[in-house]
């Protein structure tokens, strides 16, 4: 599904985020150092951060067009978001977290049904637990499942492997690959790790201090000496 960000301008505390990219790949990595504006860009896509100007479309659907004063509210964007801190609802059980955004059977995409999602992410045994009792890896899978159960058209993943140790990284990485291969959803994957980018993404957008310094196929862009 095509993702278009045209002349998107966002004022951040230290700099202005300015993005003008189009990508048609299943998984697009947003790559760059800490503080480059990667999370802010995900927030803009999700509609939780105000934008000064710009145009955003996912497939045929225009989410934002400031010239026409068009803004699709966050709740209607059909965007699954797994932030870096996961943002699981601490007062709810795993089941309640998973069902929070789950569509009913008539409107849900059958591929995103409860049994399939929980099976792929191997969390059936966690459903009755409290989220506060889960390990880091379990929380990661529950947050991923919660986002998928809302039948998203676009899935935003903010550095899903950044705060886990190496052993867990391999395990979570395997689940992320399963999600990529099992579910028909376009993904935007924020990372600052080259290996992760090569493993997960087809296209890459390189951000530095809010500006796009390179964009295109992952191998081509990463091969350039500027990134090594």
């Amino acid at each position, binding site marked *: 599904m095509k993702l278009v960000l045209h002349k998107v301008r966002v004022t951040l505390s230290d700099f202005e985020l300015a993005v003008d990219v189009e990508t048609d790949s299943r998984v697009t990595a947003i790559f760059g150092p800490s503080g480059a504006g990667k999370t802010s860009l995900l*927030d803009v896509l*999700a*509609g*939780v951060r105000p934008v000064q100007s710009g145009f955003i479309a996912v497939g045929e659907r225009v989410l934002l067009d400031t010239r026409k004063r068009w803004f699709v*509210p*966050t*709740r*209607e*964007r059909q*965007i*699954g*978001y797994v*932030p870096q*801190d996961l*943002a699981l*609802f*601490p*007062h709810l059980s795993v089941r309640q977290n998973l069902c*929070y*955004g789950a*569509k009913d059977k008539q409107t849900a995409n059958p591929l995103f049904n409860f049994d399939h999602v929980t099976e792929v992410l191997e969390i059936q045994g966690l459903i009755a637990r409290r989220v506060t009792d889960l390990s880091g890896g379990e929380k990661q899978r529950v947050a991923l499942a*919660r*986002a998928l159960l*809302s039948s998203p058209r676009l899935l935003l993943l903010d550095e899903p492997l950044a705060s886990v140790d190496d052993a867990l990284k391999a395990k979570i990485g395997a689940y992320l690959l399963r999600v990529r291969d099992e579910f028909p959803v376009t993904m935007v994957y924020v990372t600052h790790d080259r290996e992760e980018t090569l493993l997960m993404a087809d296209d890459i957008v390189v951000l530095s201090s809010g500006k796009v310094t390179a964009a295109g196929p992952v191998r081509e862009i990463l091969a350039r000496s500027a990134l090594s």
Partner: protein
Amino acid sequence: MSAAEWQVVWFTAWVSALSTLVILPPGLAVAWLLARRQWRGKSVVETVISLPLVMPPVATGLILLNWLGRYGWAGRFLHDRLGIDIVFTWRAVLIALGVMSFPLLVRSARVAFEHVNPRLEQIARTLGARERRVFFTITAPLALRGIIGGTILAFARALGEFGATIMVAGNIPGKTSTLSLAIFQLVQLGEDAPAYRLLAISVALEFLAVWVSEYLMRSEKRRA
């Protein structure tokens, strides 16, 4: 304790509870707006809401008397249109207690709302939740201890209110006399024994309310 003393205790307890219930919905709405929204005139509203905390209570009472009296703008409207008199009735006690405890409720609830991670609310919206659902399923439950603590603190403030109440409701035995007004009057009359009995009840009620409120506020901070 005499029947008259019990009446004072009962009247103070129920009118304080009712005033707290009445200010709860607007108090939570204002607290949420202050915690979660940026709007023009916000600092002015914040200041106006906090005024009863710092102004002499009798001054607040005098303002209320001017507004709610038969010749005040609100009092005249209520008298002429609805046939309701406010000053020197239990309704005046209710309004005085509500006005004086409103800032405490708003401040406590605002802090409780601010402790809720906004990321949780944003993610709830990405999952399709409307604002009302976000508030009732995420914000309010996570701020609940702070809200209850603030509510109890407001109730405690209402229990001990004196200055504004005496200005706008007077001290009419069996009609508008609250614990603090009754204690004051009994001391003036030299009736120490009943004054100390009411004092003991007042201290016990206030201690319990403040202790529970502090406990809930502390556990709210720990949760955050």
